[in-house]
């Protein structure tokens, strides 16, 4: 984009505008750029539009009305005012510069030039190709709203607004990408969210100078968050507007990027990734239970395999009560290698399942379950226990609500398995300590990642361990540094 001073103004000679558009946009070369010349009250009027991104019915209606001016009006001098008046649309904006007109045109708005007038009218008739909101695949619930974000940022912000009709809910639009000019929306509640945090995120977004962010929210996340090589997800994604609305009310900041159906929640901690909308649809007691089972599963997905490997390699560690743990025969390959092979095998299957077309997935399932698992034991490649424990750990991986977190946990688990395999007990304990210290040391936008465990915050930890009933959630989590701490008057109940 050019500097502010040398922006080209809209010329009052319409031919100049046309030649500029031809040169800059390749009018006549790019087929998707449409152009229509009208003669109204003996003056030329040009309408530019982008095929496919605007609603033809509305454009036709507008042209119809413009042409009708010939029959109803006669004051040629007042033509621009008449046209402005007759452009029947609620979002009409006169613009002075060609650059802005082009930007808007390329977003799917129509631009109307009138000969002898130094402004162009921009009418918002955008209609992007896209799907209607449907329940997101990754965050299904048994009960609860079934709408999810789509690829359309306008619909997404509207879904938020439907849930929070607060006058203080802010949707700030920004453009990212020198070429792609992707819309990015920063949502927060003015008198709740931390001003410093909003400013920090805004600055980071404004600093971006890349040509385009085709990978939308993920690319943006990498610009906003400091640690590029960290395996752990430092932001939480959601495709559910109800989850996003809940976080907005808690004082979080939400970033929505156009063309992506997932919104970014900031700031996030480890325990945010372990939450799921499902437990908020259950009774608090059952929600708590669901949560504990999930915590346990996630814990197993990281530590079960290395711990079992440790006990197999060093049976003296087993207490007498548990002496039956461990394989009866050791197999032909070292157990550590077996575990690693089985883990990698499961990764194969996971990746294959993503790419396999649905009609073939049954065949894949069959290969996975019967052929690989059973035959591997029969030919003596794996011992049965390896299959059992790897399967439990793999299920734990899939129980993790956040896909990003589950993959990171798995990577860490493999590191600890290798440490344990080589260094035994010492490798295992040091591996755990390094893992915990690593998590403690991490920060997502100044927020300690393991909060509220380390640093410990009793009340927040209570909210993490138990699913507290909504009438008792009086205050917002301190980690977002809310300006207004109370969600409801304290005396209720």
């Amino acid at each position, binding site marked *: 984009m050019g500097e502010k001073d040398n922006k080209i103004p809209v010329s009052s000679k319409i031919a100049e505008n046309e030649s500029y558009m031809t040169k800059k946009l390749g009018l006549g070369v790019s087929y998707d750029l449409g152009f229509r010349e009208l003669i109204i009250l003996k003056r030329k009027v040009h309408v530019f539009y982008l095929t496919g991104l605007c609603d033809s019915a509305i454009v036709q209606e507008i042209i119809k009305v413009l042409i009708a001016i010939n029959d109803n009006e006669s004051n040629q001098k007042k033509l621009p005012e008449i046209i402005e008046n007759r452009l029947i649309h609620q979002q009409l904006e006169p613009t002075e510069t060609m650059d802005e007109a082009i930007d808007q045109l390329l977003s799917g708005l129509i631009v109307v030039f009138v000969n002898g007038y130094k402004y162009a009218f921009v009418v918002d008739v955008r209609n992007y190709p896209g799907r209607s909101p449907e329940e997101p695949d990754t965050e299904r619930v048994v009960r609860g709203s079934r709408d999810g974000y789509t690829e359309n940022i306008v619909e997404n912000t509207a879904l938020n607004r439907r849930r929070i009709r607060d006058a203080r809910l802010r949707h700030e639009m920004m453009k990212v990408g020198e070429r792609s000019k992707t819309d990015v929306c920063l949502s927060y509640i003015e008198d709740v969210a931390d001003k410093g945090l909003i400013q920090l995120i805004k600055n980071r977004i404004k600093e971006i100078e890349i040509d385009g962010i085709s990978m939308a929210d993920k690319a943006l996340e990498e610009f906003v968050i400091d640690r590029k090589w960290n395996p752990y997800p430092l932001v939480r994604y959601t495709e559910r507007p109800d989850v996003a609305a809940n976080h907005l009310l808690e004082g979080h900041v939400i970033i929505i990027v156009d063309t992506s159906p997932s919104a970014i929640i900031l700031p996030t901690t480890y325990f945010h990734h372990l939450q799921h909308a499902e437990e908020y649809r259950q009774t608090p007691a059952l929600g708590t239970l669901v949560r504990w089972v999930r915590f346990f599963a996630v814990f197993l997905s990281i530590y079960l395999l290395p711990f079992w490997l440790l006990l197999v390699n060093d049976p003296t*560690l087993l207490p007498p009560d548990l002496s039956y743990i461990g394989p009866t025969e050791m197999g032909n390959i070292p157990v550590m290698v077996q575990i690693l092979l089985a883990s990698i095998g499961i990764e194969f299957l996971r990746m294959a399942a993503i790419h396999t077309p649905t009609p073939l997935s049954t065949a894949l399932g069959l290969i996975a379950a019967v052929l690989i698992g059973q035959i591997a034991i029969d030919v003596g490649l794996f011992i049965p226990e390896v299959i059992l424990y790897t399967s439990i750990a793999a299920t734990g991986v899939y129980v993790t609500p956040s896909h990003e977190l589950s993959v990171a946990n798995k990577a860490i688990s493999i590191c600890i398995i290798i440490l344990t395999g080589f260094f035994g007990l010492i490798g295992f304990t040091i591996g755990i300590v390094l893992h915990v210290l690593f998590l403690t040391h991490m920060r997502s936008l100044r927020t300690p990642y393991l909060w509220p465990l*380390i640093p*410990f915050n009793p009340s927040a930890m209570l909210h993490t361990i138990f699913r507290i009933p909504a009438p008792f959630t009086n205050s917002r989590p301190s980690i977002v540094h809310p300006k207004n701490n109370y969600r409801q008057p304290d005396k209720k109940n």
Partner: protein
Amino acid sequence: MKEENQLEQNKREEPLSLIARAMITGFTGGVIASIAGFVMNYFNFTEISPKSFVLKSWVRASWVDGWLGTAISILIIGLLSLLIALIYYIALRKLYTMWMGVVFGIILWGLIFFVLQPLFPNIPAFVDLEVNTLVSTACLFILYGTFIGYSIAYDYHDTKEKEQKEKEQG
């Protein structure tokens, strides 16, 4: 450093709840660490159990070996941990870094296993302990120290920051 000076000035206004929160952290840390200690002892990660420190060295009753002994030693360690949290709060709360907690844990471990060892008749001398025991307990103390230290320092830092913000906003 400037921030540090400002913090010195409003020392008198320090709310009691900050200490109270540090005490809760201390107790929770002690309880979690001693439970972890028992689990580690159960799986023979370490040859000494938390019980050996707080009960077995002094009390020779049959209930010590049962679940009651376990529960009581968890409670005692939780209470002792209050003292440790208090020491950290008084001496080190202003150092806003988690590494101080790690160092604190190591120092504490050295103190208990090396310096104070003669006090506990039930604990073998430092040199007689297995390597596994030394590494496991050191790891436990590192995590314990981080938990106590980082929690207290973060809470202090966060509260001060909040006060500062409120002051700026009027």
